[in-house]
């Protein structure tokens, strides 16, 4: 086993990986940008090397500096987290070339699965069903139009190198296709340095369900249940759960076996996720394989009682998986809410300095945060500040527990999407477990009780709370919240929009 591992990331995933490293008795070290010298992931590490200025393209994404840092700090392996260099096959090769262990799949598997068209061809060969569409990138709008007419609208535009909703567009008609193609290519170029985009049939009543797979270097491969990720806003996952309320045991086994087949088709080792589109008729199609740890992996950990980062580290160290497929048994139900620093109305990122912070506690609650009570959320990076997960003996309890957890959460200084989560967690379709990826495309019902239904004492309490906050700000020489500059305008728009 390793003595020291470098985590080449920041924020919640760097913190989460370092926690398991400590729990395994491994010294965690990391890298940071100039802006992150005192960020939480650096404070939690035993050592950290500055790899460049704030912009990630000049720091966290500069592979050679990360490798040099690992050598300097005496790390034997590099864990990339997700995002940044995690799906960069060239970096994975360079890590190995530097005599370090790459805690991730073989570079060839990353390459195969990293290119969506290549991935589709590879898994098709292994008998894995794929979404109808054309397995080649398009740049000419007329060609895209021809394909779309062939498979029929609506179609999805997807960045070939993409992920996480970037460079992705659902288009319903021909003008939208032309406009969307340009935007998708521009986003793809900006986000991935590759503007290849392809066109795919859009499955009706689609569910986004993914299977967690875990393979060791000794030929053992497991599927560790599924995650339902259909609660999305603009193709970004918002709430995930395990198991899927839409999938029964027979389908779980069928999809699990297909996922393992897909992993084996590309010689996979380590943790990976095979994403499927599942139609309202339960037909399922391979979408892509994410060759890294997934943001939402904790719900799987809570239900299956495994630590996926621990397994990643053990497999990378050459150990065999400590489980057989029969050991992998679910217990209860888990839900995850991604907490973003974002405006609740415009959904735009809302960075800033956290002035007070209190996370939920108690039975069945897990918090993975990338910030603490004194952190600043910088503009330069992903605005996700934490993931809240709850476990319950059944789905209803997990959901009520999440509502309680959200209610126990206090974050001041930045604006978050907690309000969105409150509305999702009380959304009738979500509560009933009958929803598809369209669940957030219609406006969410507002909180159930209008002002008239609230006792006067609650209104008084809210006004007093606001007043005390203003007093505190005044004591610090600041103006009351919302009384200066653009905040007023944004706020008034919010009032009208709400």
């Amino acid at each position: 086993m390793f003595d020291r591992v470098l985590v080449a990331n920041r924020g919640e995933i760097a913190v989460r990986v370092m926690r398991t490293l400590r729990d395994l008795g491994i010294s965690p070290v990391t890298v940071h940008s100039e802006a992150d010298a005192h960020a939480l992931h650096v404070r939690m590490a035993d050592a950290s090397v500055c790899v460049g200025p704030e912009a990630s393209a000049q720091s966290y994404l500069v592979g050679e500096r990360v490798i040099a840092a690992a050598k300097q700090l005496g790390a034997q392996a590099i864990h990339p987290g997700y995002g940044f260099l995690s799906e960069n096959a060239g970096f994975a090769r360079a890590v190995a070339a530097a005599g370090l262990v790459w805690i991730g799949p073989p570079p060839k598997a990353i390459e195969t699965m990293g290119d969506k068209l290549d991935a589709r061809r590879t898994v098709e060969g292994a008998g894995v069903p794929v979404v109808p569409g054309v397995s080649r990138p398009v740049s000419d709008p007329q060609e895209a139009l021809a394909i779309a007419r062939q498979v029929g609208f609506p179609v999805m535009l997807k960045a070939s190198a993409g992920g996480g909703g970037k460079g992705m567009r659902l288009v319903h008609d021909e003008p939208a296709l032309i406009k969307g193609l340009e935007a998708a290519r521009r986003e793809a170029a900006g986000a991935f340095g590759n503007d290849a985009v392809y066109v795919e049939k859009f499955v009706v009543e689609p569910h986004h369900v993914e299977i967690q797979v875990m393979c060791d270097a000794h030929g053992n491969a497991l599927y560790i249940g599924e995650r339902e990720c259909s609660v999305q806003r603009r193709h970004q996952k918002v709430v995930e759960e395990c198991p899927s309320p839409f999938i029964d045991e027979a389908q779980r086994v069928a999809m699990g076996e297909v996922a393992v087949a897909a992993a084996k088709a590309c010689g996979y080792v380590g943790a990976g996720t095979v994403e499927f589109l599942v139609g309202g008729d339960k037909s399922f199609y391979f979408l892509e394989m994410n060759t890294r740890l997934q943001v939402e992996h904790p719900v799987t950990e809570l239900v299956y009682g495994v630590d996926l980062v621990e397994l990643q580290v053990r497999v990378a160290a050459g150990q065999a998986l400590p489980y057989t497929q029969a050991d992998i048994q679910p217990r209860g139900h888990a839900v995850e809410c991604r907490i973003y620093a974002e405006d609740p109305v415009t959904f735009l990122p809302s960075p800033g300095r956290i002035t007070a912070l209190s996370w939920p506690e108690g039975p069945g609650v897990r918090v993975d945060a990338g910030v603490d009570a004194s952190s600043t959320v910088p503009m330069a990076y992903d605005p996700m500040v934490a993931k809240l997960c709850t476990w319950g003996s059944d789905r209803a309890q997990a959901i009520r527990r999440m509502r309680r957890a959200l209610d126990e959460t206090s974050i001041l200084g930045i604006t978050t999407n907690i309000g969105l989560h409150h509305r999702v967690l009380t959304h009738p379709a979500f509560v009933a477990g009958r929803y598809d990826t369209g669940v957030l495309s219609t406006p969410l019902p507002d909180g159930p009780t209008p002002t008239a239904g609230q006792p006067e004492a609650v209104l008084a309490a809210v006004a007093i709370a606001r007043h005390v906050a203003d007093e505190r700000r005044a004591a610090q020489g600041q103006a009351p919240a919302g009384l200066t500059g653009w905040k007023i305008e944004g706020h008034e728009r919010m009032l009208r929009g709400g």
Partner: protein
Amino acid sequence: MRYTIEHGGEPVTVDVRRLGADRFLVQIGDGPAKVVEAHADAFGVHLLDGPASHRVRLADDGKQAWVRGHAFKAEALDPQAARRRSRQQGGAAGGGDRVITSPMPGRIVKVLVAEGDTVQVGQGVVIVEAMKMENELRAELAGVVASVHCKADDRVEGGARLVVIDPAEG
């Protein structure tokens, strides 16, 4: 201080004055002023109303508050803010803003309109990129573009004035 508190329905005006450590004088709308005992901490306020226990959690620097999953918006009402508010509403057709501002720091990807263009409600005017996501800012009212204050690749601050629209005659 006077605040408007909104939760779902119409905003309600609440006047608050501190009387002591945990005591406040509160008047809701035109109702009678009452002495309320409330305990404040870093995260909000706790108030016992008879046996009913109300825990208010502040969010977003005090502008929002949560009471057991219910969102409230709390706005400070002072003469200046009230003036600004009425001015802004007077200048807008259909309740939308005349001025398209950047809701946060970011980079201008593309300006979709030029001075003198006619725009419709909901028409895209500027694409701003923030944290690697593109976001289209749309006109909130129909009219004519009076001025454009940004160009592609500009870095803009939150609140920066990007485009001003002269409303069409309603």
